[in-house]
């Protein structure tokens, strides 16, 4: 349940960064941020900051390098949140 909530939250964060020809419904767990969702690589930095703010977590440089797909982001969010909530 919690994961589904995080997923919807993440979609909301990504939405304003999508180019005009891609809708929020095109986002799937496997979507690659840059190659499939056509998100400007500079904006990926902003998505990371928005994720940090929304989930009250901090992403390290390695996390940022690994965050290529929506699933990657979900894994990082879940990991950070669960260690925070313990």
């Amino acid at each position, binding site marked *: 349940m919690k994961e589904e909530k995080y997923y919807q939250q993440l979609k909301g964060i990504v939405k*304003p*960064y999508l180019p005009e020809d891609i809708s929020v419904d095109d986002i799937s767990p496997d979507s690659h941020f840059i190659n499939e969702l056509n998100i400007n690589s*500079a*904006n990926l*930095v*902003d998505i990371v*900051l928005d994720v940090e703010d929304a989930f009250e977590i901090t992403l390290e440089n390695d996390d940022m390098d690994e965050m290529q797909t929506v699933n990657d982001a979900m894994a990082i969010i879940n990991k950070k949140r669960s260690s925070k909530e313990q």
Partner: protein
Amino acid sequence: MEDRVVVTGLGICAPNGVTLNDFTNSLKKGISGISFQQKLKDLNFGCQVAGIPDINEGYINRYFTPLQLRGLNASGLVYGVIAGTDAWTDAGLTKAQEDEPDWDSGIIFGTGILGVDKFRESIHLVDAGNTRRLGSTSVIQTMASGISAYLGGILGSGNQVTTNSSACTTGTEGVIMAYDRIRSGKAKRILTGSCSDSGPYVWGGFDAMRILPRKYNDTPSNASRPLSASASGFVPGSGAGALVLESLTSAKKRGAKIYAEVLGGAINSGGQRGGGSMTAPNSLSVQRCIKLALKNSGIESKDIDAINGHLTATGKDPVEVLNWSLALGRSGLNFPFINSFKGIMGHGLAAAGSMECVGALLQFREEQIFGNVNIEDLHPEIEKLVDKSRIPLKTINFIPKTIAKASFGFGDVNACVIFSNFKD
């Protein structure tokens, strides 16, 4: 053969009006855009009045995408995008197609410094060891060319896209640079203009130099007094003005409306010699600039009907009028009409030249010379040179044929452009 250059679009985001209609109305009636600024009082500024364009969030949202609005904290950029896109629309032009830029259209849009508030925000993050939190917006909002880059992306311009910077000369210089580029056949259209941020971080240095008025904090609309004996400094302003310059061939082909023709202009510097300094102009160089502008425009001194001066309301206004008088060889009743819009909009610094060019050009459309404000006490040195009737205190009906507009800036730099009523 070299093509003629005309003005086909205007846009404005000024303290005294953020649409062409409101701006025109303010200039006609002398309605001031200068107001008291609590923030400046809180920060112990000597001068606590300023000119800031009156725009709200809803208005800004019309010009920026939701993504562009995220973390947007650069007022000059906002003013520039509003004035620039409005000028483009006013010219009847549209944005380029998604897959190909408009190779014939360029942008020369200047500023003094961009995104000062954004830069301050960034400095705090960097100093706190939090550089990674800057995100992607800090660079594009604080690079000087951020304004031309934003406009270039919005409009899809494929010609030269650049930002010029020459202090208070910036806007007028940009018009002449755009004219040169079109004239030489390198572009068909240039969106030119300039913008300047609002706020204490831009204006503080001027307050420290004690060149802003301090006696009018309770009477803001009286603070800016160009040409008057009681002028005691310039009122800090901000905003943006924009003009679409276009080759006559292109304008005719599109059936565009034409505000005026740009006959030519001149840009020079006094080299901070011969009385010129970082902050004061070399008078000889000012006179040369005006004379050269006439020569480059193929007109004579007697052809000038009206002058829109730089006239900031410091103690230097009489020197400027003397320079006009000497350069044109005209004085007394023979002097052209002269006005300064700074009385109602303050000194827009890098934005001054473009906002005032827009105002000067509107005089052709309105067939009027807009009146001056706050000169019940005309400076005696100026009265010796120019008959009072040439300095209208109210807007007068007059069909100008040729208007000279000049701007002068820190660094001893000058620009003078000549506009004329368009005749085929």
